[in-house]
């Protein structure tokens, strides 16, 4: 623990504590896990970027069907490579202390595969395919499911979910807050 503490100044730790939902101990813990991914690159420079493949090797992310989207959304350079600050940001949003509205915003970006600020039926199809894993729903089932979801959520009938509609439907979904968590 002493080793990791000396990598950051007191001021930096205070900084991180103010800007994320973590306490100092938790930040150091996150650093420890991050360092294990690629110790060599990080021994030189605290702010080195780690490639997306290495991040997706993290046990908590390895089996997640949305791991590539997660890396893309949280990476500050937009290509999936994350520095420690990006990683800390990500874990902060996924922690228990983050409020629901923050999680909802990021969830929307994760589920928006084509990044057009709406979740269209193409996006939904990809989400469901990722969720069901190896087996896929039949085409008619998929269409029926997408229709059902639009019926529940799409209030203005434009065949896509804007952020407001997504937020509205999530407020009625009790399982979201409990499942949108990662603990390191």
């Amino acid at each position: 623990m002493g080793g990791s503490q000396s990598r950051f100044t007191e001021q930096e730790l205070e900084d991180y504590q103010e800007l994320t939902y973590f306490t100092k101990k938790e930040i150091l813990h996150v650093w420890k896990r991050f360092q294990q991914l690629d110790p060599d690159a990080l021994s030189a420079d605290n702010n080195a970027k780690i490639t997306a493949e290495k991040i997706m090797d993290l046990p908590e992310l390895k089996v997640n069907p949305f791991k590539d989207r997660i890396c893309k959304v949280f990476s500050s350079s937009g290509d999936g490579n994350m520095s420690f600050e990006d990683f800390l940001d990500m874990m902060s949003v996924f922690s228990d202390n983050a409020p629901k509205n923050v999680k909802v915003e990021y969830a929307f970006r994760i589920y928006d595969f084509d990044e057009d600020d709406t979740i269209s039926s193409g996006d939904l199809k990809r989400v469901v395919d990722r969720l069901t894993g190896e087996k896929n729903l039949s085409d008619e089932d998929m269409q029926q499911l997408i229709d059902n979801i639009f019926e529940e959520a799409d209030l203005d009938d434009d065949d896509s979910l804007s952020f407001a509609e997504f937020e509205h439907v999530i407020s009625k979904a009790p399982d979201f807050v409990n499942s949108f968590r990662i603990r390191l």
Partner: protein
Amino acid sequence: MESKSEKLHTKKADSGENVEWNRNIQASVLSRLPSHRAFNSDCGTTLSRTFSRSRHRSSFASRSGQEIVSGIPSDDLLDKLGFPAEPVDTSDVFLNEQPSVLNHQSIRSMTACMSVKRYYRDQRYGRGTERLDSYSRLKQRQQLAWQRFKDGIKNTLYQLELWAGAFKIIEGRFGTATMSYFKFIRWLLFLNVFMSIVMICVVLVPHFVINAPSTFAGSVNVSTSVFHYEAAVCTNVYNNATQELIRKESMFQKVLDFLQGTGWMEPTVLFYGVFYNQTYGGVDSGEDMQTFNMSLAYILSTGAIFLFSLIFIIRNSAKGVKAGIISSDSSLTQYSNKVFGGWDFCISDGKAAHLKHISIFQELQGDLQNQALQWKLARRTFRQRFRLYVIRFISNLFVIVLLGGALYLIWYTNEQMVVLQTNLADQVAVVQFFIQFLPSVTITVLNVIIPIICQKIVVIEDHVPAVEIKLTLLRTVFLRLASLGIMLLSLRQLLEGTGSSDANIIPGCGNKHWLINSTDEGSGSIKCWETYVGQQLYKLVVLDFFVVVIVTFVVEFPRKIIYKRFHEKVKLVKLVGQQEFDLPKSVLDIVYGQALCWIGFFFSPLIPAICVVKFLVFFYLSLLNNCIPKSRQYQTSRSNSLFMSVLLLSLLLAVLPLLYVIMRMQPSQSCGPFRLYSVPEFVFFTSVTNTIGSWPSQVQDVIFFLGTAGFLAPAIVICVLVMVYFIVVAQAQEKMEEILQEQLVLEGRDKQFLLARVNEVLMMFGDMKKSETDVVLKQDFIL
């Protein structure tokens, strides 16, 4: 020729370009919508919403001229139709906002990367201090200090969290629903620790520390009143009888006694009987001897424990109820819930992930099939519906008969136990042992068999799966709690029954069964009924504990090993399958144990401590993960509210018998803190009234007034009125929500209409413009 082919080429490019062109226009219009701009700004949508709300509240004069949030597109006809607008920051607004709106939470909740957040934080709290007056600066510093203090506390609490490591593993393997079960065990564990601490501090510590007169006889002046004399005599007889019994026992019987709570265990602090009002105080210093009023302490600690349990349960279930009400229309949003909240991000185990994928797939498919089925069923013929209702009626009847039969069986075995005990009083110790455990074993066996039967029956009734689960659960809960209730009823019948015209049974010293026959053989007579009740409950607790331990080791371990070794080879093994983790059943087991604890701690102060040990063992046994996660996943949200409501129900079940005992039953004069009567019709509660009677008369009047009908009736009426008010408000808000939803739909349609018109206009303009650019392009080619 060249120009012809080129013309063709440009023509094709034209039509392709046309589609591209239109798409570009639509995209550029969409990206300038205020909602999109807010979404893409650094602050994110929700933060921008806060700002716009506060800007509306501020006066007109102080609003900045630039209407950023409302996002009026530039007059430049979308920048000559070529380039979509850059998403404009609303973050400038952030920097200029009043401090009352902003605090650290705003910075943390910005949807931007760390460097951007840092920039804004520095801008906001770094510069601009010269603009703030000293008061705001002070407030700012205060906020920072308070935030740091809170973070410090969180830091320490984080380290103290019990079983945090184990929970992480469980989360990874089983998902959050099972995690909530373990969190529930941990919460109950803390509740039990609290209960044992209270009982130990209030009752046990004084008993050991204030060791003044070491026996009851020594502490009481026999000549004070006839009740003192009676109490002394009865205590004497009881103690002698107990000593006799202990003397006559063999070593083997002594071992059995540990499990039953009889014999040498009876006069220990485990049971109620040994406590009495002890005196302390300096005889030397000439003061009067002060009495530690053990009876008052006993009752007050009981009341305090129930009150705190109630408060804790309500606190814990408030969150669940709130979420439950918001998602009350759950049938409507189940698909979105399953898709967007379906994947458990905590899962880190490959096998668990695979199982989760399969379960999501099966659930989605099942729901879609159900939907198709329901459309078909809606068109059920009258005949089919009639048949279904008849079937349901018969099965419900059957279940009621079954439950009633089970309850009667429990009653019967309780009665039989006493009869057998008197008849076989001189039998071997082992036989006696089994007779003692007869009712408890009956209850346990019934609790195993009947839920299985219920599960089979509910399939016949052909309900939606969610309703199926609820029905089975309801029936099982009813059985468990009712069996406890019946046992208590039969105990009451035994202890207060007026039907004992049997001349052999002689009451005395507050006990109905003081002497079984006139020669007082000893065994079979109940000389201290509170301890007797304590013993019955103690037996139940012990049996519950052993059943779970034994079942885990004898049934589940071998099953797991057999499955591992043989499931490839022997088909039968594969058919039976692995033990699945049945969440509702496990929860009911835990709640049943807790109900026993609540009922029992009045008669046996150490039962909470035993329950602490029991829960610890349960936890570590469950951790050994003999079971695989259930293929049909149980939803977390429903789990929590389920646990809490069953727990609340069992708390109520525990309070009612105790209330009856305290208010109506006469304590025995041979044991316990209440053995000193003050009036012939002394009940437990009389000691409290006696204490109140020693207070000044005004206070007495107030307190007694609180108990009269003159106070209670208006109080109840007021409570009912408040409840009705809240119900009406809730209904009005539901109506409001409907109205707002309809408004939203209409607004959405308006927006689409307007967007379509805008696109039309732009396309017309674009066509005109395009013909100009066409010429330019052609010229370039030719050149």
